[in-house]
């Protein structure tokens, strides 16, 4: 037995306690730093965006009307938001049209049909696709998709066009969509599959009527993640959708045009680099803020959607 003659000390080794405190502070400061950086980015975006609105309101002839002028030509003080927002939506729409069936198809195959051995090989291969730099996919869209595919179908396709960029972005997000939704399907308990097979359901029915709905919340999350990524993707659209300097609103995706990210990229680099034009420079931040808000709304929306569709098991 311990002798407790007042000498019993449970206060712990002060060195160890100090060490614990230090570790805690290190991790805390890392977390705080991350949050501070995010807040600072948002604040600077908001600040510059407001400054942009003030400067076009006071210095540009058309005032705030220039936000709905003809086309996006920032150096000529024409900042038509409809043009770049529409182009972004067109590219994202095409990308999702490509990535949804292929990504979900791959996910269902990997999760439900592939033998374990096949899966062990295919899944990493698919994830390697996610590692292809987007600049490579940009040139792939420009040098292969446009001349060898699109021009064979529609010979009026322009050298730079939204369609090729959309397909390129779609290929880029397939691994994201398939990997996240495959994880969601894998998380569906085996007991549900057994219940389905036990009732004489075919694989097809089990995959589509049991596993797919049970994994729906994760699948929706995967699609929204893909959509966010496609809206924010810059390199592929900058290369393949082209139209440096500015663009007019193009209703046909076979024409070239600037997306929101494409517009920002061309303002920031190359011969178009904004040197003097104050409003043109500030428009970068305004568009950036708009992009940020779009993805924010998408993420919040997905959160809601996922909660509504969630099937507990």
């Amino acid at each position: 037995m311990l002798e407790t003659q007042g000498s019993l000390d449970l206060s712990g080794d002060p060195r160890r306690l100090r060490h614990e405190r230090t570790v805690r502070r290190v991790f805390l400061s890392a977390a705080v730093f991350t949050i501070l950086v995010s807040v600072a980015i948002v604040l600077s975006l908001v600040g510059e965006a407001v400054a942009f609105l003030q400067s076009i309101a006071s210095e540009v002839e058309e005032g705030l009307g220039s936000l709905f002028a003809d086309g996006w030509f920032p150096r000529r003080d024409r900042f038509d938001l409809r043009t770049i927002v529409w182009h972004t939506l067109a590219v994202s729409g095409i990308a999702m049209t490509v990535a949804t069936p292929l990504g979900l198809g791959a996910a269902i195959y990997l999760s439900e049909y592939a033998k374990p051995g096949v899966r062990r090989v295919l899944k990493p291969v698919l994830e390697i696709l996610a590692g292809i730099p987007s600049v490579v996919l940009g040139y792939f869209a420009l040098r292969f998709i446009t001349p060898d595919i699109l021009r064979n179908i529609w010979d009026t396709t322009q050298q730079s066009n939204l369609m090729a960029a959309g397909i390129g972005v779609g290929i880029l997000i397939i691994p994201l969509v398939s990997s996240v939704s495959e994880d969601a399907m894998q998380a569906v308990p085996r007991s549900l599959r057994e219940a389905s097979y036990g009732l004489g359901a075919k694989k097809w029915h089990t995959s589509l009527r049991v596993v797919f709905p049970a994994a729906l919340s994760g699948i929706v999350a995967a699609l929204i993640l893909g959509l966010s990524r496609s809206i924010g993707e810059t390199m592929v659209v900058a290369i393949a959708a082209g139209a440096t300097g500015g663009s007019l609103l193009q209703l046909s995706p076979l024409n070239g045009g600037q997306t929101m990210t494409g517009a920002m990229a061309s303002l920031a680099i190359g011969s178009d680099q904004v040197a003097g034009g104050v409003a043109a420079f500030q428009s970068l931040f305004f568009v950036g803020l708009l992009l940020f808000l779009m993805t924010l709304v998408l993420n919040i929306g997905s959160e809601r959607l996922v909660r509504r569709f969630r099937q507990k098991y």
Partner: protein
Amino acid sequence: MSTRMELASTVVEDAVSPGPSAGLAGSAGSSAIFEIQDLNVYYRDFHAVTDTSLNIYQNEITALIGPSGCGKSTVLRCLNRMNDLIDGARVEGRVTYHGIDLYGSSVDPVEVRRRVGMVFQKPNPFPKSIYENIVFGPRVAGWKGNFDDLVEETLVRAALWDEVKDKLENSAFDLSGGQQQRLCIARAIATSPDVVLMDEPCSALDPIATYRIETLMRELKKQYTIVVVTHNMQQAARVSDRTAFFSVDVGEEGQRTGRLVEYDMTDRVFTAPSMKETEDYITGRFG
């Protein structure tokens, strides 16, 4: 086939006539639905069940009992080819269903499972409404008919109708565990199967829910043939007509292989087992 069936019924009569229970006389005329001969099951290199032969008779409840790892669930899962879903599972020997070799090359497991339904250890309703759970099986089988009537009829038969008739559109997860399990039984009989396999259907339930399921099983055997795996020997004694007792042989390297020790009328197995091993297990002296 016919001679074998006659043989089988003679065995039944022999087994029944000296027994004290007159209630079993009804099963004297039943015939073998499943015939298992020299069944061996392997999971890759692991030999799970060795040389098992037994017959399952129509409109009876057959209980498979024995210690953990004795292969009773494995044998059960051979009867509707659920083992096919396990990678590396291999079945040797012969399992016939109404005289047809279940593992014959022309047999589609989907067709087998439509006739041989299954209820699992843990209640596993789909994350859908009560109604959708019931109609799932008939719907994937392409059944045409009045689904509302089918749902009512099935739930009545599963003794669940009165409890759920006002909340058919509610999620199956709103039900208690015992109700969920009865819903799973209802779901299994909604496809009008011939046989219902139950893999420890009460092991996750409290005694009252267990009692209800046992009552339901006795009711259901009028229409269906039931094979139940159970850990609970009292349950086997209470509900089953026949009992198969499995044991485990532990090999030199610790590999565990299941083996059928004794198969007889339940009364006989529990009151006058012919094997010492069975007696030891039943009286709790096992291991």
